[in-house]
């Protein structure tokens, strides 16, 4: 068994040597982190970029918008990512964090994402307003000037024009960016109109009594659960409705159907902007960053006929695309 000892000793030495050797090696592909909503689009661009240029294919991680910002703003150097995706704008706090660590973010807005309330084909058919959604899902509502627990059981309890079907909504958990956007775009908007006493928790808290079911981050799972339960309504990104149009139908919100055209025109109310942020300090250090930004902001990529539209990204208006593409090419630093 002397050989065993020798092998193990040499294995340890080898592992140690490999470790030290790599620490000194330079990175030759772009590292991207951030939002899981932007992930399907960012990966598509990364793949094309790798195929059509001589640079390595960027590595894309799905860490969530907040997690991505934390890694991105942690400092400058090849240990830190070059680009972070976000399904919301960078927060002032994060921008300050970036500045303190010597990171200059360049903001690129890439398009819109619609959040839809969908149900199975042949299942419940809803024509909602944002006030209805708030009335159905808020944990506490204001009744006759007093704050009481929401006791609406069916959609008809919220609005007599809606079907008398039990409220069952499958949605993302609080860690998800989709949930943040949903709360901001629906709950807070409707709440501001409905509630007089402006209490932040009153507007953002979602029911925990079974009417709203946290269904995890995987939108495919929500789609499957909707097929099994025709009375349930799911909250998920537009790209899943687009891909599963044979099985699902999106509920109208404020009279607008969740279609590509309505979201692009800004008529459908629950949509948000998607961004990515480039670390200016890494441009020229890590090869290919400028070329990647150029690929992402190319008309064949993010335009109305580009390949990202096929993946479910809602393009920006024409004029915005031109302005953003030229700002991005000039690497204009973000000012806040």
């Amino acid at each position, binding site marked *: *068994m002397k050989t065993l000892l020798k092998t193990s000793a040499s294995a340890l030495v080898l592992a140690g040597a490999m*470790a030290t050797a790599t620490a000194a090696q330079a990175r030759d592909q772009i590292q991207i982190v951030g939002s899981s909503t932007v992930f399907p689009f960012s990966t598509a661009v990364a793949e094309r970029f*790798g*195929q059509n240029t001589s640079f390595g294919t960027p*590595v894309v991680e799905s860490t969530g918008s907040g997690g991505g910002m934390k890694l991105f703003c942690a400092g400058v150097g090849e240990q830190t990512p070059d680009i972070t995706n976000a399904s919301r704008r960078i927060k002032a706090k994060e921008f300050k964090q970036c500045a303190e660590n010597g990171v200059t973010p360049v903001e690129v807005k890439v398009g819109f994402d619609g959040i839809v309330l969908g149900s199975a084909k042949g299942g419940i058919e809803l024509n909602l307003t944002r006030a209805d959604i708030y009335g159905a899902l808020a944990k506490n509502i204001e009744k006759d000037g007093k704050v009481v627990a929401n006791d609406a059981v069916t959609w008809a309890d919220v609005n007599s024009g809606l079907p008398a079907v039990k409220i069952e909504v499958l949605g993302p958990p609080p860690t998800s960016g989709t949930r943040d956007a949903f709360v901001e775009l629906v709950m807070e908007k409707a709440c501001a109109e409905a509630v007089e006493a402006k209490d932040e928790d009153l507007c953002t808290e979602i029911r925990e009594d079974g009417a709203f079911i946290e269904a995890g981050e995987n939108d495919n799972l929500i789609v499957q659960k909707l097929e099994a339960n025709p009375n349930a309504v799911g909250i998920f990104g537009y790209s899943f409705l687009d891909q599963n*149009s044979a099985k699902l139908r999106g509920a109208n919100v404020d009279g607008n159907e969740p279609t590509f055209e309505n979201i692009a025109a800004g008529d459908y109310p629950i949509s948000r902007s998607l961004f990515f942020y480039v670390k200016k300090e890494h441009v020229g250090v890590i090869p290919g960053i400028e070329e990647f930004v150029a690929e992402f902001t190319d008309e064949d990529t993010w335009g109305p006929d580009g390949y990202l539209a096929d993946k479910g990204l809602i393009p920006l208006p024409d004029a915005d695309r031109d302005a953003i593409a030229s700002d991005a090419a000039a690497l204009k630093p973000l000012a806040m």
Partner: protein
Amino acid sequence: MTDPAPNPAIAVGAATDDRAARSTRTRKRFAAERRFRFYGLAAVLTAFGFLILLLSTVIGNAIPAFTYNYAQLPVELTNEKLTPENAAEFDFRKTVHAAQLSLFPDISDRAGRRLVRGIFSSGTPIVVRGEVAANTDWIGTRQIIPVPVSDDADLYLKGLVDTDLPESQRNISDAEIALVDQLVERGLIERQFNTIFFTNGASREPEMAGIMGALIGSLLTLSITLLLSAPIGVLAAIYLEEFAPKNRLTDFIEVNINNLAAVPSIVFGLLGLAVFLNFMEFPRSAPLVGGMVLALMTLPTVIIASRAALRAVPPSIREAALGIGASRIQTVFHHVLPLAMPGILTGTIIGMAGALGETAPLLMIGMVAFVVDLPAAVTDPATVLPVQIYMWADFPEIGFQQKTAAAIVILLLFLIAMNAIAVWLRSRFERRW
């Protein structure tokens, strides 16, 4: 309960009653045993039923993923800029689009051209580039190259699209179906074994996505794990079992090792992030770091299994060796360790199988990532099989559902192979006393 000296007068009178009562009791006991056996069998059958259900769904979903529909594309490789030297980098998009249109000479408008392009995979130029780079003598000629059709066209050809639905509810339009049917009539579509699935890395297009990148990543990660956890674990077990004095310190170590075996794996990921990435500055997403984190995670398993195997070697072996003058280290390495080896190997392989299925600790160190290029070294960005399954399950394209199931089948095959090796080692080398 029974009276040692029963009263004979009562005993005689009660004899027949007693026998009847005894036989009822016996029947009851037999019935209880039969019931127990039935419960046990029912439990096994239920578990087996669930297993069959799980496997049949997964395998049923996976089968379509192992074949793919290819179209025979006549490609003119006559572009004067194309040379044998630049074939591996040449941009074949224009060449391929021209070839695709040449199949439908009566289509010339812009919308029609888009439609034609839509029934082929968007990875067609990459496939053609690979073929031409491997056969540079084709340059300057016209070649028929089989290229994958688009994922939606493939689903249609496999009969997985409900054509009775209205056009707006399908991902493939009537016009596209007409074009695909035309190709089928002309005999240009052939269903082949899906080699792309076994040779490519990750992709956002279901038809271009393969398992190879994740497979290499898993192998690299597991070899690092094995290289680190096997020697450290076995040596630790030998020391603790054979040499260490029994005192408070070794008791404390033992309790901690047992505790570590039950720590949730994500904790090891956090440790890896803090120590290996932030402090030691190793690269993100690398199998080297993944292997080190998984080694930490499997160490307790290996140590516990190895100690159990060493303890199972009877003391008489050690005493005999010491008795004829062997030193303690000779006793351990010449006699005890070889006898304990089957148990140690089994424990190590089961630990490895656990590491193969792990994703949570890898999340923290960046291995849950979209990696297209195949990793060539332990420091290249890579992902592993379970992560690949997780990511495919999350993509919206319907074509990825089959890929997910196929990847699960491959992961299961690996696990079965590893566990089979463990069983074989045990039955082949194990000795009983």
